[in-house]
């Protein structure tokens, strides 16, 4: 839920992750504590004191977690309370140890304190975190002054110094690293946002003026008497490109699932072509991703017709039924030799995009006899064509 709302990939995300990890480890500690309490029931010298110590520690843990989840970060005050409680529990622990001197001491006050040291290093300054860790280690060390401490428990105290330091140091270093990384990501994101704002501002304003001027000049040039057909075609293509860029700037319509409607809309961009739009309206519902690729392929084909074909008739044909669909672009223009010149009919990238979704592309052309481009397929798509895939 957090990830989808605000994400973990920023500074706030690191704090949230820390809260999550602390919650999990704290729960683990409390469960372990309860298990030990149950297993050693009846052995304690002062069972009520042990239970009271455990209860206070549990309450402190709950308080810390509630505060952390609310603030979405570890609360220094709650951690300070937790440190004081953990030190206190360690100090009173010798009073509720087993009656039998040969039995090892219960160790739950010790292992729950490791996490408290880590909490301190996660939210305190290094100096304060060190003080807290030393306080916890000192409270644990106090067990050694008790003459009744069995040898096994004595060794456990010495051995606990390593996890105390390790928990504190590793937590500090790891979180410092994550926080710096997140800060860097935040800074980069901010830079990108500012650059994007600037780009949007420039994209929205500057090209409008330029495109308007350019389109007007190109149109005037195209309407000039005596212009050559080839040059007129290039000017028409330039005008269409200018209009296309303008539509991109404005925000293009994503493809719909209605292929017929999308193809009909192309007509506006090719008013200079003698075009017949022979498109069936009914039954042309395809996934938007497929419609997008087909429409762009037809657009590419028509651009090539405009630039190269010098056609007197161009027919865009589309039909579909439950089993298959077919879209074609035919022109009666100059044609070309298809051996080794596939790109003249349709851009290779466009062909690749169509083949990627399982469509077949066929280009037939003979010099002097026009060109036929057929795009066809069944409704078995070879990739996920949800609308999102368009972006």
């Amino acid at each position, binding site marked *: 839920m957090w990830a989808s709302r605000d994400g973990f990939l920023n500074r706030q995300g690191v704090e949230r992750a820390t809260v999550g990890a602390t919650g999990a480890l704290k729960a683990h500690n409390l469960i372990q504590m309860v298990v030990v309490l149950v297993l050693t029931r009846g052995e304690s010298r002062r069972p009520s004191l042990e239970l009271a110590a455990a209860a206070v520690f549990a309450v402190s843990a709950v308080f810390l977690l509630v505060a952390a989840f609310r603030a979405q970060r570890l609360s220094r005050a709650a951690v300070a309370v937790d440190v004081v409680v953990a030190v206190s529990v360690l100090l009173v622990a010798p009073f509720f140890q087993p009656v039998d001197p040969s039995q090892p001491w219960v160790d739950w006050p010790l292992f729950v304190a490791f996490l408290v040291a880590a909490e301190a290093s996660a939210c305190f300054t290094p100096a304060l975190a060190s003080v807290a860790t030393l306080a916890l280690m000192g409270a644990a060390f106090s067990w050694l002054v008790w003459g009744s401490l069995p040898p096994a428990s004595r060794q456990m105290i010495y051995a606990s110094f390593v996890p105390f330091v390790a928990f504190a140091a590793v937590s500090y270093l790891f979180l410092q690293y994550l926080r710096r990384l997140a800060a860097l990501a935040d800074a980069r994101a901010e830079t990108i946002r500012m650059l994007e704002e600037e780009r949007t501002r420039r994209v929205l304003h500057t090209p409008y003026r330029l495109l308007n001027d350019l389109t007007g000049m190109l149109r005037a040039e195209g309407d000039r008497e005596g212009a050559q057909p080839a040059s007129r075609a290039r000017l028409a293509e330039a005008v269409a490109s200018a209009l296309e860029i303008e539509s991109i700037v404005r925000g293009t319509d994503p493809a719909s699932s209605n292929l017929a409607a999308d193809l009909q809309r192309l007509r506006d961009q090719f008013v200079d072509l*003698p075009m*017949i739009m*022979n498109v*069936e309206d009914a039954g042309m519902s395809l996934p938007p991703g497929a419609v997008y690729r087909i429409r762009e392929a037809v657009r590419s084909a028509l651009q090539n017709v405009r630039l190269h074909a010098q056609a*007197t*008739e*161009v*027919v865009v*044909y589309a*039909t579909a*039924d439950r089993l298959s669909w077919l879209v*074609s672009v*035919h*022109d*009666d223009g100059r044609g070309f030799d298809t051996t080794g010149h596939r790109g003249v009919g349709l851009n290779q990238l466009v062909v690749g995009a169509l083949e990627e979704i399982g469509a077949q592309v066929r280009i037939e052309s003979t010099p002097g*006899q*026009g060109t*036929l481009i*057929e795009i066809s397929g069944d409704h078995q798509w070879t990739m996920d064509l949800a609308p999102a895939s368009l972006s």
Partner: protein
Amino acid sequence: MDDGPRPRVVVIDDHPVIASGLTCLAPQIEVVASFSTVEDFLGAPPSPADVVLLDLQLDAGRRGGPQPIMGTAAIRCLLERGKGPVVVYTAIAEEMLLAACLAAGAMGAVTKNAPGATIAEVVRIVAHGDMWVDPAVAGALRRYAQRRHAGALSPQQANALRYRGQGLKQQAIADKIGVSDPEVVYRYLQSAVHKIADLDGGEATEANGKHAGAHIDEIAQRSGLSGGLVRWEDLQTRPDRPTRKRH
């Protein structure tokens, strides 16, 4: 394409400027006479013409007086008096309306925004005795046949309509459907048009108004055009129709 004499054309259009404009637009054809109505043409001394170019709507700007003969009735009227072949030359780009004209006996239909070369080609083909089917009309007919008469067309007829709908020309279609004589393509197209008209006529009656012509006329009226451009009986009485039905 320009081999031989230019085809001679009579133009029937209520806008006289069309005839003079055609001379400039399509110099490959010769406009020998022009008339505003079918009645004027039939009442005038015969003009030696290879093709009659007929506007579909002939009542523009007319106030009062009898309605001139128009639409499929005009096609039938001309054909029954031996004035043909007829090519419909119209501003109405309604594919099924043009298809109805072909079903009524016209040998071609071309819209007024077609380039001069296309008009000349249509006239040449029709003067040669073949039917010219516009790609848009072919596409519309194929879709119509699939919806209402699925499987009725022979594979060759259906493919000829499909390839014509895609914009292919005679030779290319012949190559595609595997016939050596390109002229056969025109015959397939013509027989496809007539078969669809016959099937429609066979399952409809004038009374129930289910003939495609009735729908087409509704479309024409909704578009602000004249009513009665397509008459049911004109589609039933094509000269070469094998079984004529009159109700």
